[in-house]
């Protein structure tokens, strides 16, 4: 088992496995998004208070979930990169930061679009949920910046991994911000201990979209790592063979 795990961490093996999986994952993601968006934007009923405007949750909520999940994956990869100096983990930290920053920006952007008509404001600086999510975006950008700030790219990867690890403290703060402080942002609808506070006809498409976002993240992460491996191993014999086809 452990032997298999270490074999996977070799760039060459990872490249082969990623290449075999990618076509299937891509097709599944595309189909899943078509189904999920139709389900959420057309089939699901309107909300009793917000009417049709609530449908933005089918993008906003999954992006916010992923912004937290991707960070956790990135911090895990950061730990592996720091302790075992695994090259693949260093690449994973960087690519997670790129994708995580986009999910965070999407969550913030869609939240602002919804906030203006519903709350009456685009943005409130005093709101703990909004502020901690904005800090998350800065953490992602910080990881990307540190990664590129050193002439020795492997040194940059390790310094970035330290920031990724240290910033993990922000994840529980974002999740619990709506409980610890009075915020304008509403409390959790789905991720709470008692029953979810959304009707099942709205909840199922939301959970489905959440799963599709995870699938999308896995697919794009694999594709990006694959390209980065080929770039970094360009002078190896196997990479040469892949290039020739």
């Amino acid at each position, binding site marked *: 088992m452990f032997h298999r795990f270490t074999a996977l961490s070799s760039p060459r093996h990872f490249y082969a496995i990623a290449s075999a999986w990618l076509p299937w994952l891509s097709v599944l993601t595309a189909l899943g998004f078509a189904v999920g968006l139709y389900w959420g934007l057309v089939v699901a009923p309107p909300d*009793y208070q917000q009417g049709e405007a609530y449908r933005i949750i089918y993008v906003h909520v999954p992006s916010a979930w992923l912004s937290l999940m991707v960070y956790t994956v990135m911090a895990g990869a950061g730990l592996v990169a720091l302790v075992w100096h695994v090259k693949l983990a260093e690449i994973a930290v960087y690519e997670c930061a790129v994708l995580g920053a986009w999910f965070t920006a999407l969550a913030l952007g869609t939240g602002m679009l919804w906030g203006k008509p519903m709350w009456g404001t685009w943005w*409130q600086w005093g709101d703990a949920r909004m502020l901690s999510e904005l800090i998350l975006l800065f953490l992602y950008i910080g990881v990307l910046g540190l990664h590129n700030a050193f002439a020795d790219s492997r040194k940059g990867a390790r310094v970035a991994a330290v920031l990724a*690890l240290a910033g993990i403290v922000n994840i529980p703060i974002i999740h619990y911000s709506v409980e610890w402080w009075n915020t304008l942002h509403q409390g959790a609808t789905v991720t709470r201990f008692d029953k979810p506070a959304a009707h099942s006809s709205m909840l199922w498409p939301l959970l489905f979209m959440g799963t599709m976002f995870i699938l999308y993240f896995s697919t794009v992460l694999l594709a990006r790592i694959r390209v980065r491996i080929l770039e970094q191993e360009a002078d190896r014999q196997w990479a040469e063979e892949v290039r020739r086809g």
Partner: protein
Amino acid sequence: MNARQKRRLGLAVAVSVGVAAGVALMLYAFQQNLLYFYSPSQVAAGLVEPQTTFRLGGLVAQGSVQHETGSMEVRFALTDGAHSLPVHYSGLLPDLFREGQGIVTLGRLNEAGVFVAQEVLAKHDENYMPPEVAEALTEAGQAPVGISW
């Protein structure tokens, strides 16, 4: 795991725990300043300094909304169940403003103890349901608005 890897693991854990402890202490120290709004009960308990501008949050009391004809002036009471405060506001109200709705207002208390608001924001709760379900709940005597606020 060899000795060097163990040392690096220890260092990584120490840095993470140290940063987390630092942030936790800082948040604990600033807890009051991180309050986005005060509830009417907190105001009644004297937690707000007099003559300061602050945010007040609560539910719009049932039957308390009075629009003045021919102007944008509106008067209502803001309640958290235990205490309530009269609010006076002049301006545009958000779409979700209605009796029983959670709102957050920015303003200050005048000498008469009325909260004069400069800004009114609607706070949406975390409940989502189709209109038919909300109707059924209302008929059963369970108001769907502001259930778990």
